[in-house]
């Protein structure tokens, strides 16, 4: 008997992508849940030093996603959490083609293995709000039903669309498996290290001239909570996961005390490519599209079905600022002091003038 039989929580869980930040944290968190018997972390490479100590309670298997089929059957796996997605091409690890291999082919192989696993009851797939694409005719707020109006220009967005397509196919073929697709807004938090957190951590932040996109973030801890609940509870379907509320990019930059450097859009695409080639910064068309169009999603369904509201975008960003206040050029205190200084100056000038009269 597995402990999962009574509580609805699965007994044996496989987490892919444990070599990365998100996967490692999810696996570690699931391992501390007493309802779950075994947590098996799968990754083709051995995890980096920053996550290894998280994984001491997780059984680790160095395995390619292509050879997962045997593992799922042998270990009688109840649930699979698929987190092995790469959001930006890494020139040191094969660039875009390796990224596509991992994202699209990896997911195909994983789903093929899942389809043949008789005991499998639950599948949780990490997706992204990039699934909504970016178009000027887009509605301001995306609900889960919104179809992308244009295929995204960025590689990650296109991968996400492919991945969700494969999951739809899997749902048709295995209606007995509870498939949950979580469309995450960009992660942010005090410890998370993503393209976007690195972007906001710079003192001078490039933006697209004449565009002030509306952004949403999800706090890393809330993302973990939602992933955890997806495993131990039953939530079939697709969900947007984002912090309620909106920050505009300029507002976020100002709150972080950074200085925005507007760049013309063609220039920005070129600069992003140049930076990629020089090996620093991993901005691609995904980021440029996000910074032109912005992306806001409706989280009503998540709040209703999960009974959980992630902390607001502003609060999540505040947490990030607290951890990265070192690079700020212009703090609130300084601004307030400057304001007082000017007011005081005006007052003194006025007082002296009146005394002369």
């Amino acid at each position, binding site marked *: 008997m597995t402990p999962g039989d009574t509580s609805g929580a699965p007994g044996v869980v496989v987490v892919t992508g444990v070599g990365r930040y998100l996967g490692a944290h999810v696996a570690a968190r699931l391992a501390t849940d007493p309802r779950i018997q075994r947590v098996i972390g799968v990754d083709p490479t051995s995890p980096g030093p920053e996550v290894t100590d998280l994984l001491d309670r997780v059984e680790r298997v160095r395995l390619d996603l292509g050879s997962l089929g045997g593992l799922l059957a042998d270990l009688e796996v109840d649930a699979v959490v698929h987190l092995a997605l790469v959001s930006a091409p890494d020139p040191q690890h094969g660039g875009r083609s390796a990224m596509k291999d991992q994202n699209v082919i990896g997911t195909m192989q994983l789903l093929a293995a899942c389809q043949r696993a008789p005991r499998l009851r639950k599948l949780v797939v990490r997706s992204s709000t990039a699934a909504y694409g970016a178009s000027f005719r887009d509605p301001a707020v995306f609900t889960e039903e919104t179809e992308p109006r244009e295929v995204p220009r960025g590689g990650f967005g296109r991968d996400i669309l492919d991945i969700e397509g494969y999951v739809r196919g899997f749902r048709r073929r295995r209606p007995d498996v509870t498939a949950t697709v979580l469309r995450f807004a960009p992660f942010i938090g005090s410890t998370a290290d993503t393209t976007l957190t690195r972007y906001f951590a710079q003192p001078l932040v490039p933006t697209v001239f004449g565009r002030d996109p509306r952004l949403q973030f999800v706090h890393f801890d809330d993302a973990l909570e939602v992933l955890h609940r997806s495993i131990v509870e039953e939530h079939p379907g697709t969900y947007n996961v984002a912090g309620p509320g909106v920050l505009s990019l300029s507002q976020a930059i100002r709150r972080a005390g950074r200085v925005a450097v507007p760049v013309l859009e063609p220039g920005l695409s070129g600069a992003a490519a140049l930076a990629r080639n020089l090996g620093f910064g991993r901005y691609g068309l995904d980021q440029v599209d996000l910074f032109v169009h912005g992306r806001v999603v409706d989280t009503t369904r998540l709040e209703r079905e999960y009974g959980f509201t992630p902390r607001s975008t502003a609060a999540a960003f505040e947490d990030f600022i607290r951890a990265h206040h070192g690079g700020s050029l212009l703090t*609130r205190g300084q601004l307030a002091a400057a304001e007082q200084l000017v*007011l005081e100056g005006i*007052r003194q000038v006025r007082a002296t003038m009146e005394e002369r009269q």
Partner: protein
Amino acid sequence: MTDERREPGRYDVPLDVAGPDVEPALRNGHRRTARRAAVGDPRDEPDTAATDEPVPTPERRPAAPAPATEGAGRAATAPRKKAAPKKAAPGRAATGSAPPGGPAVADRPGDPWDRRVAGGLAFLRRRLSGDYEVDEFGFDPDLTGAVFHPLLRLLYRDWFRTEVFGLEHVPDSGAGLVVGNHSGTVALDALILSAALHDQHPARRYLRLLGADLVFRMPVVSEIARKTGGTVACNPDAERLLGTGELVGVFPEGFKGVGKLYADRYKLQRFGRGGFVSAALRTGTPIVPVAIVGGEEIYPMLADIKPLARLLKLPYFPVTPTFPWLGPLGMVPLPSKWLIQFCPPIPTAHLTDSADDPLVVFNIADQVRETIQHTLYELLERRPDPFGP
């Protein structure tokens, strides 16, 4: 909110302080209290906004004196109430770190310039530190109230001498769909309508405009549109706004209305597919038709150079008496006289089930169109001279 109650007394010049031997800082009426120093920033932009309020002079608005004065009377208090909770959380926290001893308010509280300077500085500080709220459509009431509406106020009040009638047909609360005629080569009428409505309606309602996607393609313009409360004209956005009880403004003629020749002025163009009606029906929102007279004369379009428009990917390329001949000077709108008439609302709450019935939708669209067209003719009779006083 406790501050608000003391509000009326704040700028009174105290009669008992002006003793000659008092130290200078206190002599000129600056009442320094611990509370005020801690609160720090003065009632910043709402005050400037309130002083810039259109105080309706009777000779300017002969037709609607009573509601207008009432509107302005409330106008003075309304923005403060709105602004106070908004900046309560971050604004207070930020100023709390200010040097505690320093006087927070500039001298001479009675002097409007002092208040303006202090308000302007506080506004700048708020903008630079990001201490403001933006809704999910990108609407920034802080910026709209402090920058865009004062600019538009100059335009609609002093340049176009706009008169607004029938404001009682616009609901005080809850959703409403305001449907107007579009005109003027550059769609200034939408902006004028929203600014005039916000200034003169007793509930100071913001009009959330729905714009063509061309607006949102253009850098800078797209962001101004979003920050002033606009969004892309599509049914999901319209229904979302109406569902949250907002007042939505839509111009179903679209570019056919804005880009028509001067010879066709005040002739309503086709109303598209009636998407606005189905949005109203689905949410049970009343439709308020509005007729705007004056917009057609600001940039009278004499010709449309179609090949150039195609080349620039614009819906039309206008030739007016001043554009493109005078270059940038041709962008100055002609000072026509504007009349805006809101018509009685058309209720739709009983038709919620018919949102997908094309016949019902077309009938209501026709009804709205007829209403606007008739009202336009009536207004034109009331305004014999397009550039009159």
